[in-house]
């Protein structure tokens, strides 16, 4: 059985805490070519770029792709759209967990359009960001 609307609402256990590090913020901002002072060496904790949330959110995708009920494959998946709703930007030193929920599923021919929301929060429970993605999964043809 492929993924279908009946899987909307399915959620997976939160990921293990991810410690946001000074070095990773600097590396990520540099890879974006973004020299905003918030991301660069200064005294006090650095702020992570808004789209850094995608890095931690993606760490929650594995549980869904490994779910044998859904028949999804990361190799056959295209990222169609992305949204970030920011509560507060992550800072150096935050310990962040990611919790994925399937929020919408549409089947169009051999393509499954799957919308997921990944809630990022500190281990203390402070909400940080909701990363919403639509993924297009192409089912294997031989069915």
């Amino acid at each position: 059985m492929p993924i279908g609307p009946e899987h909307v609402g399915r959620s997976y256990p939160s990921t293990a805490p991810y410690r946001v590090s000074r070095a990773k913020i600097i590396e990520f901002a540099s890879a974006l070519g973004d020299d905003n002072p918030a991301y660069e060496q200064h005294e006090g904790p650095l702020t992570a770029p808004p789209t850094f949330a995608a890095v931690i959110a993606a760490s929650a995708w594995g549980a869904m792709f490994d779910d044998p009920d859904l028949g999804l494959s990361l190799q056959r998946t295209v990222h169609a759209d992305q949204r970030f709703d920011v509560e507060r930007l992550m800072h150096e030193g935050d310990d962040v967990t990611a919790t994925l929920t399937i929020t919408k599923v549409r089947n169009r021919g051999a393509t499954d359009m799957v919308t997921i929301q990944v809630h990022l929060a500190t281990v203390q429970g402070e909400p940080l960001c909701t990363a919403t993605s639509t993924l297009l999964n192409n089912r294997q043809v031989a069915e």
Partner: protein
Amino acid sequence: MSAVAVAVGDELPELVLTITRAGIVHYAGASTDFNPIHWSDRKARELGLPGVLAHGMWTMGACLRIVTDWCGSPSAVLDYSARFTHPVQVPDDDQGVRVFVTARVTELVGDIATVAVDARVDAVQPEESGTGNSAARVKVLGNAKAHVRITSDVGAVSSQNAGGAL
């Protein structure tokens, strides 16, 4: 920086990004997204793609700089969304591909501005395109927009806001 006076229709200063194979590798490491379509022409072609593509999240993340350079603080960004409408194919050369980013304020409600972001690449391969012209460019992000909180001290908050919620 002084207060930012914002009006609907304001155009943000244009941004031109360049992405090379080296830049893709840099982003792959920084983001830990090691999908082979971002480093192997062979793997990309096996999946029916023309060749190595930049990460969509690189494009989305790098383009946001047009907004944060303008408002000063990334903490002013309340939300940011985009569709990945056209892949950014990056040839194995030293020039890479330029991404032309423009943005304008499309709505202002209270102190919240909606900023629409437009990102395009030359439709033809870079070695054939010369300087390119806008008619030959294709959009790589669809309906990209951010909502930004405009404050009188925006531009000065980035380092001071580090400990608190927005």
